[in-house]
């Protein structure tokens, strides 16, 4: 929808539904941090909260840039893709911190850290190798490629972590809910992306699906921080049925 006057100079602007999803999502991001502060677990789940805080800051920044420049402006596009690279790095560290919690009883924190550094360095090198032939906009292409590659690394890491949770019979309810929410978010986003690539006429639905999924992740985390006690345990039978 074009907002007349100044809006027409800015070009395309989001419609009311997109603004509403954006507003609700940003409020839910703030709610995650408020709930974890209220429950005094902000420091324990620091990297999860850091990702949500970065997400909140990025939302406000994008709102400011979009309000001044419009959705189709080069400034908004560049700000969007560079801030997404920042977001995906924060998300990567939050997943690694969840690994550290799951494996904390095995005392392999140092090895988790080493694996994370190798993975981040490997992904950066791979992304650079993909874009190194470009003669123009190398940094932009690199940021875009890195965020795409790290996204899929995060997806695989989440599935591996879920496998480890099942294998180790992890019963900490809060940890299980955080990882499960992340897994559902990654899966739904990747599925939406694949569908929009295979069936371009679904693009108009995917346009709303992605921000909705982006809102459901902080909703789930906020609920987990608000309602699930830090020491709560699940019965192992509720995680997986093991054949005898």
């Amino acid at each position: 929808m074009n907002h007349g006057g100044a809006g027409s100079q800015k070009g395309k602007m989001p419609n009311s539904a997109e603004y509403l999803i954006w507003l609700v999502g940003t409020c839910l991001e703030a709610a995650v941090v408020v709930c974890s502060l209220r429950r005094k677990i902000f420091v324990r789940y620091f990297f999860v909260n850091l990702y949500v805080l970065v997400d909140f800051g990025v939302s406000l920044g994008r709102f400011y840039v979009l309000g001044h420049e419009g959705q189709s402006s080069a400034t908004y596009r560049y700000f969007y893709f560079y801030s997404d690279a920042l977001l995906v790095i924060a998300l990567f560290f939050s997943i690694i911190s969840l690994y550290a919690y799951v494996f904390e009883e095995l005392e392999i924190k140092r090895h988790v850290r080493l694996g994370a550094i190798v993975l981040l360095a490997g992904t950066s090198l791979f992304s650079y190798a993909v874009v190194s032939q470009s003669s123009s906009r190398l940094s932009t292409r690199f940021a875009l490629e890195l965020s795409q590659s790290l996204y899929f690394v995060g997806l695989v890491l989440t599935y591996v972590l879920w496998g480890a949770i099942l294998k180790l019979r992890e019963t900490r309810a809060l940890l299980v809910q955080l990882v499960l929410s992340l897994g559902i978010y990654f899966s739904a986003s990747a599925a939406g992306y694949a569908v929009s690539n295979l069936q371009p006429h679904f693009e108009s639905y995917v346009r709303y699906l992605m921000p909705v999924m982006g809102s459901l992740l902080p909703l789930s985390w906020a609920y987990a921080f608000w309602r699930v006690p830090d020491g709560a345990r699940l019965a192992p039978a509720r995680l997986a049925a093991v054949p005898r």
Partner: protein
Amino acid sequence: MSRRLASVLLAMLVLTAAMGLKTVVAKHTSDRTLVAGGVAPYPTPLPDSPN
């Protein structure tokens, strides 16, 4: 095999799986890219976007 070597090997396996999955999912590519959260509306893609 030492734990250090195992963690490096696991990291390499994850990287390989992730890049393979990325290739499969983005095979029939459109202008859209996957984003890490964020609820802001998607912008018009860059004119010479690699994806």
